[in-house]
């Protein structure tokens, strides 16, 4: 494995947990799967559809998201939004994230 490949693999590991946080942040407004995927990728949080769509259902099952079918348009779509519990979890995760950023920046400055 070249160092470039190693960096890509490790970066992917670093990003893995951030998708959940980004979803919880973005879904303050109701959104459907594909539009959310586009928004995330535009924002620099790269994720594949085959990861994101099952993830949304899992978060719904855990009670962090709620969902509703919108049949107003010709193509019915399932819209997700954050539940009250999801908001609490997001607040805690944001704090975790800030602590991590602080710790890592302190560590990397000393190094």
């Amino acid at each position, binding site marked *: 494995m070249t160092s470039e490949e190693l960096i890509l693999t490790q970066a992917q590991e670093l990003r893995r947990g951030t998708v959940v946080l980004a979803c919880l942040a973005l879904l303050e407004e109701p959104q459907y*799967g*594909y539009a959310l995927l586009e928004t995330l990728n535009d924002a620099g949080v790269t994720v594949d*559809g*085959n990861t994101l769509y*099952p993830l949304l*259902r899992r978060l719904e099952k855990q009670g962090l998201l709620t969902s509703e079918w919108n049949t107003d348009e010709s193509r019915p*779509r*399932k819209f997700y939004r954050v539940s009250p519990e999801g908001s609490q979890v997001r607040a805690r995760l944001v704090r975790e994230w800030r602590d991590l950023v602080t710790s890592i920046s302190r560590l990397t400055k000393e190094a």
Partner: protein
Amino acid sequence: MTPTTLTERYVHEVVRRIPADQRDDVAAELRATIADTIDARDPDGRGAAEREVLTEMGDPIRLAARYADRPLALIGPDLYPAYIRLLGVLLAAVLPVVTVISVVVDVLDGDSLGAVIGAALGTVLTVGAQFIAWLTLVFALAERFGKRRGAARGAGSWTPDQLPEAADSGSRTAAIGGLAVDALILGLIVWQHTAKPYVTDGGERLSVLDPALWTGWMWPVLAGLAGLVVLGVLRTATGRWTTPLVAAYAAANALFALPMAWILHSRQFFDSDFLADLGGLVAPDAFYTVTALGVLAVSAHDVYKRVREWRA
């Protein structure tokens, strides 16, 4: 949308692998999502885009596993250590014992040597395959339907007490090997007596060893050999030699070796009819002396090795 489109076939392949109560909902969402993606890529026609989008969604089995939150492994990391440990015990300790028992039964039935060896190989293959198959099935079911993650899995907790003794693997192999040799000698002695494998030109069946021994010295020899086999099994099961085990091993070895040496020394070993049919073959004195001393030396060496393993 006709049911034969690629998308429809793909959605069907995914949802038939997830729980029934979620199928319709996941199918509807997948259809809409795939259609949204295709429209964004190729707003006009629906040619290459559909194929491309489905390729990116990937293997339906993988996607279904993600929807059902199911592991993509037959036996996952939680159960793997327990699985490997149990498989090792079954194949290294239980399988040899089962094979020896089946060989002894065949020998008592008076089967020929070839049939006994064939049956032993068959036992190793079929029983070994059964062990692997059933153990794997049970663990795969536990993986699939057992509790996900969490400390509730008793099999997952490991303590340093489970570490094997450092010298264990070598002495264990030696113990299993010794056990197999003892069982083979025991089997051969019983077999030559019950099957009378030697056939004279006149069609008379003879045993190789003197049948008169069965009213005398053969019994301590057999008891000693049986004792050695049992002790070998116990050693394999407990993992090391304990004081009582080593003492019993020495006693069983003496029970086997001393009468055997006496039988050889006093020329009671071969059936005289068997020797006569071989053309009046007379083994030289040295043969009996050397063999008798050889039996004593091998037994003494075995006991010495066990004592060293026990003290190590």
